[in-house]
């Protein structure tokens, strides 16, 4: 499929369907096909949003297939629930979930190719080996390319059971492989949803309520309709859509659109949230998430009690590509094209909305210009589908940055209270955590560390239902919980007069020898990242810098970090962050290093600067002029190390982010004696006159 606008030089948007493969390709399974000229096409089913899945998925298939990576072509598969499972991006789960399935897909095709060669040469398959896209007769050295064998091989019965490679024989997995879309990205080829154009397609922007808790009272679209390029103005639900012939024309028309709104539900401001948090923290109506031992008795008998509270603001996901989707609702079916993290759910919700069967809908995935959880929601897909069905035309709905920032689904604000009871020997005999959040569900991770290491423990939570829309934001819950917990434990370690790292190791030792209740984390894996970070950062040995430590288990993986802060003119400057990660087997070393670095930059930027506030239900920051994201100058050096333990991969899209804020805050404490309890750090009284983005 292609698009040619008025200009002959126009680029074409390639959203490839499986149907667009060359016809002579031999299909082996859902994941791969081989052409007679020895090009191996591997499909990548999961949405690619920068986690590098489009490169690492095919690497796993190619490894077992013994394919020559130079002749591998990767294609983003359209949504196909018959062929693929879990075709989504979220929870750092794609690789752990599909690891074995992908290996088997490659190994199966390899075995079929070997059997085809055995048949052709009339020899035993055991006398042949596969290497670099060739099947080779070991004794004679004669060989055939996969391409030469593809047609015969694809007609061989699919083996029920295949042997997977010994992990020590991996050649491709664990190496640094470049992103398969690099050339397209660095030359500006159309890849993203916003790059999708088609002849006759209309453009639309939607005016949504400016404040949460309001609805449309009246719409006057006379002036907007009279603007050049405007085709229609359509009101549906709480949306007023301006439909037209170009982005700029509808953007201009929107400025003369007159919509009045009225109150529909609660209208909340950030100051209300602060008040609500205080009330909830002292409420008697919490849901108990975990209870071990007798907490009340432990706190009564304690030699010392430490109680601290931590709060984070709302955050925008703010992927660089704003929300957009193309929809064409026709009599005979629906076509959806664009960037989304949960294509199956988006399709099902669209089917429900339009009252048709999901099979009537095709959904093609473009590359996603970031996601961070925002594109787990289908709101912007449904808008496009509903609008297309109303105007009976193909339409691409485009959100401006302001729409993206004000139109909802945010990381919710959360507040935590942590309490620790120490005995006279500095042992933590009691531990309490209460989490209160806006639509945050359970904002605790009750079976994570330090659960299992404390005799008397109580974890509970209370939720406030807010009309402000919220959703999963990269490393949901743990993106702030990790900070609060690791900052708190640092403070407890100081009170217990123990080195912060040793304090955690002691707790882990306790959990290992004599665990209290069930835990979800692996004690040895957590210890191994702690020890690696300690070693690589020369913990405590460099007296010129102030080091802060943090470690966190999230999404099946473990990351420990050490932040280094130096003082300049009496002000703390973040100089360097060391990370030690255990995500099991690293698939693509290049992607993995950057995933950790990027996670740290993300975690640091939002801990330092991220701040979305509300006034009377409306977001106060509407664009990057006052919603601050971390920039080039502000990034410290980052050094990444991986634990090499041969465990099957456990995911890396999120786990590097949660520990960063805690490592930084703990280093700032070492340097200044000041504790940071709330985010963003730069707005805290303790950091007055300090710009934590500055470097030496």
């Amino acid at each position, binding site marked *: 499929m292609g*698009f040619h606008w008025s200009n002959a030089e126009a680029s074409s948007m390639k959203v490839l369907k499986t149907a667009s493969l060359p016809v002579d390709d031999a299909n082996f399974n859902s994941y791969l096909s081989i052409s007679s000229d020895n090009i191996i096409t591997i499909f990548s089913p999961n949405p690619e949003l920068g986690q590098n899945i489009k490169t690492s998925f095919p690497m796993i298939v190619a490894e077992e297939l013994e394919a020559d990576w130079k002749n591998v072509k990767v294609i983003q598969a359209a949504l196909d629930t018959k062929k693929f499972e879990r075709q989504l991006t979220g929870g750092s789960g794609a690789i752990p979930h599909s690891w074995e399935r992908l290996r088997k897909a490659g190994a199966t095709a390899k075995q079929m190719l070997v059997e085809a060669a055995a048949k052709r040469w009339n020899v035993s398959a055991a006398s042949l080996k596969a290497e670099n896209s060739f099947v080779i007769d070991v004794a004679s050295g004669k060989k055939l390319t996969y391409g030469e064998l593809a047609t015969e091989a694809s007609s061989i019965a699919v083996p029920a059971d295949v042997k997977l490679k010994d992990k020590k024989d991996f050649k491709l997995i664990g190496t640094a492989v470049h992103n398969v879309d*690099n050339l397209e990205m660095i030359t*500006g080829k159309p890849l993203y949803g916003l790059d999708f154009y088609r002849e006759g397609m209309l453009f639309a922007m939607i005016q949504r309520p400016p404040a949460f808790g309001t609805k449309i009272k009246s719409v006057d679209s006379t002036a907007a309709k009279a603007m*050049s390029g405007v085709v229609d103005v359509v009101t549906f639900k709480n949306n007023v859509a301006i439909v037209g012939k170009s982005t*700029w024309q509808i953007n*201009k028309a929107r400025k003369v659109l007159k919509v009045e709104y009225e109150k529909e539900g609660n209208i909340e401001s950030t100051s209300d949230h602060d008040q609500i948090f205080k009330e909830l923290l002292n409420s008697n109506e919490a849901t108990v998430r975990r209870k071990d031992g007798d907490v009340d008795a432990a706190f009564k008998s304690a030699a010392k009690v430490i109680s601290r509270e931590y709060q984070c603001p709302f955050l925008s996901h703010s992927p660089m590509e704003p929300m957009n989707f193309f929809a064409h609702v026709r009599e005979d079916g629906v076509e959806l094209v664009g960037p989304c993290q949960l294509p199956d759910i988006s399709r099902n919700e669209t089917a429900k909305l339009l009252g048709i069967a999901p099979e009537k809908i095709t959904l093609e995935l473009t590359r996603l210009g970031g996601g961070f959880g925002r594109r787990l929601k289908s709101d912007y897909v449904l808008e496009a589908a509903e609008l297309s069905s109303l105007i009976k035309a193909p339409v691409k709905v485009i959100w401006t940055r302001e729409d993206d920032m004000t139109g909802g689904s945010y990381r919710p604000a959360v507040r935590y209270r942590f309490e620790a009871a120490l005995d006279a020997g500095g042992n933590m005999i009691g531990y309490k955590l209460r989490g209160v959040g806006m639509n945050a569900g359970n904002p605790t991770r009750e079976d994570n560390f330090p659960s299992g290491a404390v005799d008397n423990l109580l974890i509970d939570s209370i939720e406030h239902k807010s009309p402000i829309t919220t959703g999963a934001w990269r490393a949901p819950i743990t993106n702030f919980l990790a900070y609060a917990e690791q900052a708190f434990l640092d403070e407890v370690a100081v009170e217990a007069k123990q080195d912060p790292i040793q304090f955690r190791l002691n707790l882990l030792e306790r959990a290992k020898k004599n665990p209290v209740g069930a835990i979800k984390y692996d004690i040895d894996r957590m210890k191994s990242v702690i020890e690696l970070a300690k070693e690589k950062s020369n913990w405590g040995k460099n007296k010129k810098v102030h080091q802060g430590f943090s470690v966190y288990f999230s999404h099946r993986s473990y990351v420990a970090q050490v932040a280094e802060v130096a003082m300049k003119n009496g002000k703390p400057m973040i100089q360097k962050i060391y990370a030690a990660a255990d995500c099991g087997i690293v698939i693509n070393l290049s992607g993995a290093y950057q995933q950790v*670095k990027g996670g740290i930059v993300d975690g640091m930027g939002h801990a330092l600067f991220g701040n979305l506030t509300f006034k009377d239900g409306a977001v106060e920051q509407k664009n990057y002029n006052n919603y601050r*994201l971390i*920039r080039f100058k502000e990034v410290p050096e980052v050094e990444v190390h991986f634990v090499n333990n041969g465990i099957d991969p456990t995911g890396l899209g999120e786990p590097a982010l949660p520990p960063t804020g805690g490592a930084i805050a703990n280093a700032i404490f070492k340097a200044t004696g000041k504790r940071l309890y709330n985010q963003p750090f730069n707005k805290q009284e303790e950091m007055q006159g300090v710009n934590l983005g500055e470097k030496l």
Partner: protein
Amino acid sequence: MASYTLQINGKSLTADVDADTPLLWVLRDHLGLVGTKYGCGIAQCGACTVHLNGNAIRSCSVPVSAIGVGKVTTIEGLSEKGDHPVQQAWSEVDVPQCGYCQAGQIMSAAALLAKNPKPTKDQIDTAMNGNICRCGTYHRIHEAITLASSKH
């Protein structure tokens, strides 16, 4: 509406648009040059960076009527085969994650190196501070610019 003939990537291209249409949307909606990205619309993120007479500009905030006979280079025209030293360095260092901001990053870096082939670390910092990368590829961007500079 008026007809504007622009000098883009060494070619004369014509678009019928309103005078206040930002160059960004002329490129994307009317000329099919979608490599230049929309990120914020207010010259804060740098995703829309192109060259006007060799200078890096934010095309979201420059109306088409202000371009005149100025020579515009977009990511599509930076090199014929994607082999500009900056593009090569980007590939060698494996910079992109989601990739959405990278065309703008590359255009900012290419403009810097054209004027200052051996920039200091501070000069790189300053030149690149207007381009946001939400994935956090800043380290690799720095590395790629240093690499491209070393090959100059």
